[in-house]
C-alpha cells in the first residue's frame, strides 16, 4: 500500500508527463488550473491516466472542488 506522499509523488510525475512540463515545476499545493494553464475539461483527461496507473476507477465527481495535487492525492488514496 502506497503512502499518501508516494501517491502524491506519482501523481506529480504522471501530471508532468501528461501535460508535458518539467516535474520540478509542479508542487503538491499548486493550483493546477493556474500552474498548468488548463481548464476543468483538460484536468479530466488526466483522470484516465491516473486510473490506469493506480488500477482504480475514479468517477468524474472526484475532481469536483479539487484544484491542487495534494487534494487529488487524498481522493485517490481513499480508493486504493
Amino acid at each position, binding site marked *: 500500500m502506497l503512502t499518501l506522499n508516494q501517491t502524491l509523488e506519482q501523481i506529480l510525475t504522471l501530471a508532468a508527463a501528461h501535460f508535458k512540463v518539467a516535474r520540478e515545476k509542479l508542487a503538491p499545493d499548486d493550483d493546477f488550473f493556474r500552474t498548468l494553464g488548463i481548464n476543468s*475539461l483538460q484536468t*479530466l483527461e488526466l483522470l*484516465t491516466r491516473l486510473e490506469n496507473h493506480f488500477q482504480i476507477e475514479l468517477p468524474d465527481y472526484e475532481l*469536483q472542488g479539487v484544484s491542487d495535487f495534494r487534494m487529488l492525492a487524498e481522493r485517490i488514496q481513499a480508493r486504493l
Partner: protein
Amino acid sequence: MLNLDQYSSLGAALRDALDRWGDETCLIESDRDRERTRLTYSDFKELALPLARALEDAELHASERAAIIMTNQSKWLISAYAIFYCGGVPVPLDYKLTAAEHLQLLAHCKAKIAIVEYYLWRAMMQSPEFKNLKALVLVTEAPLSADLAGAFRWEDFRRKGNPIFVPRKREDVACIVYSSGTGGRPKGCVLTHENYLEQCKSLTAWYPFWPGVRYLSVLPTNHAIDFMVGFIGPFVCGACVVHLRTLRPEFVRDAFVRYKITHVSLVPMVLKNLERGVRAKFEGLSALKRLFLDYFVALNKSFTRGSPNVKLSRWLLPQVHKAFGGELVAIFTGGAFMEPSTLEFFYELGIPVANGYGLTEAGTVLTVNDLKPFRADTVGKPLPGVELRILNPDSEGIGEVAAHSKTVMSHYLDDPELTAETIVDGWLLTGDLGRFDGKGHLQLFGRKKNMIVTEGGKNIYPEDIESTFEGTPVKEYCIFAANYLWPEKTLGREILVMVLRLEEGQEFTTTLKDEIISRNRRLPDFKRVGGSLVWEKDFPRTASMKIKRAMLAEEIGKSRERTAVIEL
C-alpha cells in the same frame, strides 16, 4: 413528432410520447466503455409510474416542488417525468454547486422532495446548513451500507398500482430553473408549460428530431438547453438520448462512434477542446495526406457554401466523419461566446455547427443559425414566434436586446422587484448588447449587465462570489466583470476583477495578493476572479451603505485602463 398545440402540459405530452413511441429506444446510459442502461419508451414508463405512485403517496401535490440534483443519467429523466405525472414542479439544480449552495436553493424554492445523487447527498449531510433541510429526500445509487440520515433510496422508492395523472394548464408552472444567484440574490426563473411547449415547437420547426435520432446529452440536464434539447425535444419526437457517466474527452469521442450520434449540444469550452484534438490529429498526418485533406476540405467548403450537404461532406471527407460516428447531422452550441474560427473549422469539415443565443429567462433559445447559409459571425435569426428589439441603439445600431415571446418566463421566484426590472411591458430585457445585420441575423457585442458567462456556459454574477473574500484585510472591495468596467463591444475576454480600496498607508503586497489567491481557490475554477485593481478612493455608497456599483464602475472605467488589472 407529437402535435404540441394539442397539449396543455409537458406531462401530458410526455405521457403520450411514451405510448406513441413504445418500442423505440429512448435512453442509453454508458459508463466508460460499458453500457449500463438501454430503455425503450415502454421501459421508461414502467420505471417512472411506480415512482410517480410513491410520490403520490408521499403527498407531492399539484404545484409542489421537487428538486433534482444529479449528473446526466436516465434516473434524472425518469424522476422528472414522475414529478410531472403528479402535477409537481421539477426544480433542476446544478450538480456542480457546493453542498451549502444546494441546501440554500432547496430552502429558497421550498422543495417538498429532493432527488439527489449519493455523492452529492454525502456532501450535503456534512454541511452545517444540513439541519435546516425540510425536504423528503430520495438518494440514488447509495451503497447498501450507507447511512442516509433519514433519506430514502430512490431505487426502493416505488409503489404498486396506477398513479393518477394530474393535469396542468398551459399557464401553470412547469419548472423553476435557477439562472444564478447562489451567494447573492437567487434568480429562480419560473417557467410555465406554455413556455416549454412553445419553445419545443419553435426549435423543432427548424431542427426536427425523429425516431432514429441519437442525441448525445453532455451539457448538464439541469441547464435549460439540455432539458429542452436532451429531454423534451427528443421525447416528443421519439428520438433517443445517450447519457455518459463520465465526460472525459476520450469517452465522449468514443460515444460518437459507438452510438452513431446524430446531434449534440456543446458549450464553447468542449467544442474548442474537440477542435484541439482534431487539429492535433491533422498535424500528425504525413505531408502528402495533409495535402489531400486540405484539398478535400477546400472542395467541401466550396460545395457547401450555400447550405450544408452532410451526405456530400461524408463522401468527401470519410475519415473525418468516421471519427464522429459517420452520422452526425448537427452540433448545437451557444450559452457563451464562441469564436467564429472554431465554428468555421467544423463547418469546413462538413459538420454543421448551429450557433445560438438564449437565456434561461427566455425559456431556452431566442435565436439560432438556420445554416442557410452558414454564418460564423452571428448567433442567428429569431426562432419562429420570437420577436426581438434593440433598445436605445447607438450610432452603430448596437443596443440592449429585448425579447417578446411565449417562451419568456413568467417571473422570478419570490422576487417581484427583480421581475419588474427584467420584464417591462411584456418585454424581457436581456442585458445583452446586440445589433441586427441586413439579413436579420443577430450579432452580440457584449453585456450591459455586470456578469460574465464562462466558456463552459455558466453565468457568474460578481455579487454571488463576493462573500468568499470576506475578511480580506483591506478597507473595502467590490467585484466587477471586466467588460462591465471597460465595455469593449465584444463577448470575449470575460474575467472578473476584484477592485480593492486599501487602508490608509497600506500597500498591495505579495502577502495580500497571496491572501486573495488563497480565498479565490475556495471557489470552483469557473467562478474565480481573474485579476485585481487597486482603487484610491472610498466607494460611493447609498444611505443604507450599499455600494453604488454602477457609479463606481463608471468612475473606474473612465479613469483607469484595463491594462491596470493585475493578474491573480
